[in-house]
């Protein structure tokens, strides 16, 4: 079986999950007309996020994490697949009205706080804009609402930040503005795309704590995208490991961290810096090979060329995502 469609959803406790994604696929065409190549950025991803759940999406550059987030927010149109938010399907070509509704519910926090805020807009303007465009508060209460949001993201005293511009803020403060702007829409789902990778170490943790506090107090669903396993473990209830545009392993954070099954997950574990990383002692294999070429993926497992446990059948067909434990699934022939 090649397709993973039709697998049961993670949990089915009556209420529909906050986000459900089925067979999400994105191909980009690159190159001159007539000599075009297809980049398979994301292939047949199934994922559901429950209300109030944090999912950590982990992988290298080019693994499809950001593409996933951009499609869920509908900054890009999927090549195939379905996106359901709160049980409602987003049409393939949503009307302007429907797209506005979707963006109210689903917000994104971007990686680079230096380029995700318009340098010409004051903090007040940036944060007020979602309030205004979604008609969430009357104009008369707008200033108060912005101050409250700034307060919640730790920009205190809020009055002191209203009239500031991005160039007057530090990276951490900018990222807080980005978070306030996302919260302003009162979303039920936030996709945070490596929100701390551009920040200094000491600030990363405060931003992660802030996201966790906000997520809990508002029972938000959060997709936390990162390449740092430690951060994913700190933030997430479940972790999904992506490679070459597919989910290779998904399960409860504690299980994926303590018993990584997929050889690629094991490689990520070994590569993670940190003295407490004992897995490196007697490591079964070292980092070798290059990330996959998304324009010519092999027919079988995309990790096969780098995998130390590779078998002949790995190169023949893509392994299915198999259940290996409670809510723990792995795409690898070793567990067939």
């Amino acid at each position: 079986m090649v397709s993973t469609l039709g697998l049961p959803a993670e949990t089915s406790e009556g209420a529909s999950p906050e986000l459900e994604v089925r067979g999400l696929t994105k191909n980009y065409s690159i190159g001159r007309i007539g000599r075009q190549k297809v980049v398979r950025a994301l292939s047949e991803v199934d994922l559901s996020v429950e209300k109030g759940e944090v999912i950590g999406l982990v992988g290298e550059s080019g693994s499809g994490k950001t593409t996933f987030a951009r499609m869920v927010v509908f900054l890009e149109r999927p090549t195939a697949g379905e996106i359901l938010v709160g049980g409602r399907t987003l049409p393939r070509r949503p009307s302007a009205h429907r797209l506005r509704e979707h963006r109210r519910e689903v917000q994104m926090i971007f990686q680079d706080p230096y380029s995700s805020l318009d340098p010409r807009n004051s903090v007040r303007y940036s944060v007020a804009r979602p309030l205004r465009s979604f008609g969430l508060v009357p104009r008369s209460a707008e200033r108060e609402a912005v101050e409250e949001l700034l307060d919640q993201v730790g920009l205190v005293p809020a009055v002191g930040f209203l009239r500031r511009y991005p160039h007057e803020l530090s990276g951490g403060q900018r990222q807080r503005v980005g978070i306030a702007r996302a919260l302003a829409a009162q979303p039920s789902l936030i996709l945070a795309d490596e929100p701390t990778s551009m920040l200094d170490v000491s600030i990363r943790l405060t931003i992660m704590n802030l996201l966790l506090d906000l997520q809990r107090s508002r029972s938000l669903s959060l997709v936390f995208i990162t390449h740092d396993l430690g951060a994913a473990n700190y933030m997430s209830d479940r972790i999904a490991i992506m490679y070459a545009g597919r989910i290779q392993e998904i399960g409860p954070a504690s299980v994926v961290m303590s018993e990584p099954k997929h050889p690629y997950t094991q490689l990520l574990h070994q590569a993670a810096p940190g003295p407490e990383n004992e897995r490196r002692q007697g490591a079964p294999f070292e980092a070798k090979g290059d990330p996959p070429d998304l324009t010519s993926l092999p027919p079988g497992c995309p990790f096969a060329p780098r995998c130390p446990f590779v078998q002949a059948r790995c190169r023949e067909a893509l392994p299915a995502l198999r259940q290996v434990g409670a809510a723990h699934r792995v795409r690898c022939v070793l567990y067939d």
Partner: protein
Amino acid sequence: MPPLLEISELTIGYGWQPPPSVIAVRGVSLSVAAGEIVGIAGESGCGKTTLALAAAGLLDPPGRVLSGSVSYQGTDLTSLSANELRHLHLAEISMVFQASMNVLNPIMRIRDQFHDAMAAHGVHSSDGARQQAEETFDLVKIPRRFFDAYPHQLSGGMRQRAVIALAIVLRPKLLFLDEPTTALDVVVQRSILQSLDELRHQLGFGVVFITHDLSLLVEIADRIAIMYAGALVEEAPGRELHEKPCHPYTTALMSCFPPLGGPRQRLQGIPGQPPDLRNLPKGCPFALRCPEVIAGTCEAVDPPTVWLDGDHRVLCHLFGEKAADVG
């Protein structure tokens, strides 16, 4: 044997006119021996890059060495002319900068960039420059076929390897690396660090490795120096620093990294912000954020340097009594 590099009591300021408007590095002493990796860690703005620039003889105005000395194999770098430094750079002392993948000239083939660098130091094609460069490619594990490529044809990790190859092509004795792997993925980072570790054993150069990622340093550095607000607040062998961090700032910095395993628990990180270097508070610069601050002492008196063991020193009032015991 004297150390390769000896920085003593170095103070560096920025400003066109005296007095300088910012003191970026204050009274830092540090030494590096051949074949040794010395790590420098700290938050943005703690002075780690300024220290490295000065130690490599690359500090440009408005940055100025105000006092102290940098001695490379007995020569005071601060007293050398620009021309003398030029002969030293690359041949004896090399530096790899942050995001250095972008230092390669995009419209020159990599081989030409190597040839230029080598020719500037008198190594020409006739002397087997190409062979030496290709051997260096082997060392950093880039296939030789990329020697004739343009930078954009290489992946990010490969470009970083090429820059490291360029830095060591003339076999310098001392290599400065400023956040060399920050922009790279973990797997690529890991393999570059492995190569670096092999190379310094193979070629015997000393390394100054600057990063804000302390968890990385603990693994690869022989000794680690922690900087805060321009001061070197703790220095110890890598393992010892990890097992027995003494300065409250080091402890706080360690707690900024969520662990890979174990139960999930909330980490606090470091509350507050580093002080404004233009307007440093009296006493210990960390006092305002320090969980173990001694009221009346830390905010008023400059902390002493205390040697705990032979090679572990800390700049902190908490250990003052211990010093008295030893003394």
